[in-house]
């Protein structure tokens, strides 16, 4: 998409001529191209820049002031005088235009063979703030921002080791964006790095948009509902994954990093599990798996039991269930679907609306409408409890994408449960399991360490162990160096009261 200009040397030219040429030929008459002419006794200099792309403070303090102060205008002297790195000499209009787009200033001294470009871009970036979607109670609260410089800065500061390797890619034809592949050289698996590198290199798109879109371009199976690369806004999670031997990808203009390869279980882990004590961490991890399972199965089981298998309902619940159901005009399947969609609506509305209104909506939707629905006999009150619990449970997954995936796969399971009862539920479970087995993340099995079975990985997947025992990285990542640290020497066993 680059415009081609005559290759011949453009300079020397008149100062005004340069500005008009740039404006007409490169910027197609942009109204924001500003210029200022600095006259000195024998010579004149024009500086051209795009108004909103340059840092005004730097422009006045460091460029114009210096130019005015120098006694003799020449490219050499200016280069020395201006206290900014990256000053370049350019011969062609095209390059000058590119530099101006990146937030540079073009300074041309009439009569010179080359123009100077001085990069003083204005960086409009949010400073790192508290993480919103993946907030932690305990541990570092900082999140990535939209600037790759700040993000790289954060990552480097958290891991100031020379083993941290950063590779640069520029992806996007219309709008090129900087993409960085980050990994720890002595830990990350060579094959993974090669694979990721080739996928990034072969990626030909017009625009990468965001890091979560880049994952959709390069992941293994784009038909699957399950995310294969983990997108996180937490630098501590990002860095922890790097230390585990995974690869990270940072994209400019995106407030989140991508982690690959991942496995299914890692979407239910949080760095918080490591910050809390091991028994708490282990408990909470197991809780999340239970929550996921409950979230997927509770409503379908209700639908199946009430539509087909009344005999499995315990005697104590039978009467109350029957009473509340008898007022409902719909079959259980429809009843459950209505309520599930209603909950999804509340969630979606709460997310779209401004925070303060969103909270009110949650209360109105959840309590007022929920109460009214039961009173009107649209659904049974037991179903309200079940649907609320399963919605709540789906939010326990530390990864937003995984939580959403769980919420969405519930719908087909509910439909199958309504059609074929428990057979439908087991069928869909079997389908999901087979799907997960077939899935891969960066050519690594997605269901590891369940299959390929790796019992040694239990401390890195389902539960957590004290660091004393858990001194190894995850086997299923196949890192170059498996040991994180040598096993501490055994404490001498001492007798009671010794």
């Amino acid at each position, binding site marked *: 998409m680059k415009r081609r200009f005559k290759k011949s040397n453009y300079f020397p030219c008149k100062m005004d001529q340069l500005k008009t040429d740039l404006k007409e030929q490169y910027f197609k008459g942009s109204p924001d191209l500003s210029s200022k002419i600095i006259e000195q006794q024998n010579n004149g200099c024009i500086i051209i820049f795009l108004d909103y792309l340059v840092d005004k403070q730097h422009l006045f303090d460091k460029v114009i002031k210096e130019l005015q102060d120098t006694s003799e205008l020449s490219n050499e002297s200016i280069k020395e005088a201006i206290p900014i790195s990256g000053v370049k000499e350019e011969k062609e209009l095209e390059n000058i235009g590119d530099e101006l787009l990146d937030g540079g200033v073009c300074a041309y001294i009439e009569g010179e063979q080359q123009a100077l470009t001085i990069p003083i871009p204005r960086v409009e970036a949010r400073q790192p703030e508290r993480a919103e979607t993946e907030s932690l109670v305990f541990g570092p609260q900082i999140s990535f921002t939209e600037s790759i410089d700040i993000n790289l800065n954060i990552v480097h500061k958290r891991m100031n080791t020379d083993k941290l390797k950063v590779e640069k890619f520029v992806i996007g034809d219309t709008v090129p964006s900087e993409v960085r592949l980050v990994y720890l050289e002595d830990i990350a698996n060579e094959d993974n790095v090669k694979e990721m590198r080739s996928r990034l290199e072969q990626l030909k798109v017009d625009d990468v948009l965001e890091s979560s879109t880049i994952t959709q371009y390069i992941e293994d199976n784009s038909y699957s509902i399950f995310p294969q690369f983990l997108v996180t806004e937490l630098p501590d999670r990002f860095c922890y994954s790097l230390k585990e031997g995974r690869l990270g990808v940072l994209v400019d203009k995106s407030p989140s990093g991508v982690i690959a390869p991942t496995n299914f279980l890692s979407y239910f882990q949080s760095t918080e599990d490591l910050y809390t004590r091991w028994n708490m961490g282990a408990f909470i991890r197991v809780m999340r798996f239970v929550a996921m399972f409950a979230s997927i199965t509770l409503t379908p089981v209700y639908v199946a039991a009430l539509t087909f298998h009344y005999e*499995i309902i315990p005697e104590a619940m039978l009467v109350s269930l029957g009473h509340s159901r008898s007022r409902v005009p719909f079959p259980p399947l429809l009843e459950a679907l209505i309520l599930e969609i209603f909950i999804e609506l509340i969630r979606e509305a709460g997310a779209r609306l401004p925070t303060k209104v969103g909270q009110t909506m949650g209360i109105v939707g959840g309590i007022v409408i929920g109460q009214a629905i039961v009173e009107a006999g649209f659904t049974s009150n037991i179903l309200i409890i079940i649907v609320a619990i399963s919605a709540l449970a789906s939010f326990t997954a530390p990864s937003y994408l995984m939580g959403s995936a769980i919420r969405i796969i519930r719908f087909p399971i509910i439909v199958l449960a309504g059609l*074929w009862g428990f057979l439908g539920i087991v069928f869909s479970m079997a*389908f999901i*399991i087979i*799907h997960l087995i*077939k899935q891969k993340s960066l050519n690594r099995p997605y269901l590891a360490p369940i299959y390929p079975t790796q019992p040694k990985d239990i401390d890195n997947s389902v539960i957590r162990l004290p660091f004393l025992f858990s001194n190894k990285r995850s086997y299923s990542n196949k890192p170059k160096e498996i040991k994180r640290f040598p096993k501490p020497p055994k404490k001498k066993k001492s007798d009671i009261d010794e």
Partner: protein
Amino acid sequence: MQSQLQIPIDKKIKAVYLFVVLHALQMGVGVVGLPRVVYEEAKQDSWVSVLIAGIALHIVIACIVFILNSYKNTDIHGILAQIFGQKISKVLSMVFIFYFYLMFISILLNYIEFVQVFIFPKLSTGFIASLLIFLVIYAVYGGVRAAVGSSIVFFFTTIWMVLLLIEPIFLMRAEYFLPVLDNSPQDIFSGALKTSYSILGFELIWVLYPFIQDKKNVAKYSHFAMLFTIILVMYVTVVAIGYFSPKHLEMKVWPLFTMFKIITLPIFERFDVISVALWLMVVIPNLILLGWMISYSCKRVTGLKQKHCLHVFMLIALIVATFVDKREYVNILTDYVGQAGIFFGLTLPFLLLPFAIYKRVKGNKS
């Protein structure tokens, strides 16, 4: 047909998986009805029959592993080709495949019957068959890794059900086992033969062998698998004998599910409904492994694409399942498969054994 197979490293599997895979293929629809089938022959000494069957199983598996080890990197088809030459071996291989295919269909039909008897009497056979076959095709498309993987994951998701038999165990009576060894050896032996349908499936190793990475562990893990299967079969049989009185047991077509009937969990009043549905997860690895084995063998023998073989076989299975849905046909088919298994599973290895010994002896001399 090439006799020595070169399997790419990323398709290979560890020998440990044999433990679960062989066991998963053996466990299936057979064990559900096994206690009655054996009891009809060997009465209260059924457990002796199972024990005899177990010992036989170990001898057979040792024999198979010996043959496979002598022929190095090849499967049953390669071995047959080396012994009988290309043309005859193709016919033999086809017979072998047909036997597996019959096993596939009998498992399919048996499970469909469980569903129709215990949960949905009116759900059509063709429909349940298409559900199962859909899963099979989807999994077999993932190749050997997915087939093995599904058996492992489904093994972990269903093995806990054996613990639920604790409630029937409390209702067992020792008197049903007495007097010990009161039946004639013929009865006990024919009881042992009747177990064949429930322990078939170890033949998978004939085909899976070239895919195994560490071949020196094959013997160890396949013996563990057999041991585990026999322990489970024994467990179910013993509990069933103790739980039912003699004539009562002979009346129950599927004693295992009947035993699940008395299990109540706090949230589920009746476990049998769930157990029949969950049994899909026990049966589906059987079907997936068999489906993979049939289609892969077919590709080996005929040179057709594995996909096409799979589609054709599954389509025929679906049609058969739709039209053969009477219990008597299912029973006849199951009996035939059990009898064929006595030949293909238990006898064939001994027929091939002399050739393997000859090859070893010749190999040592040269």
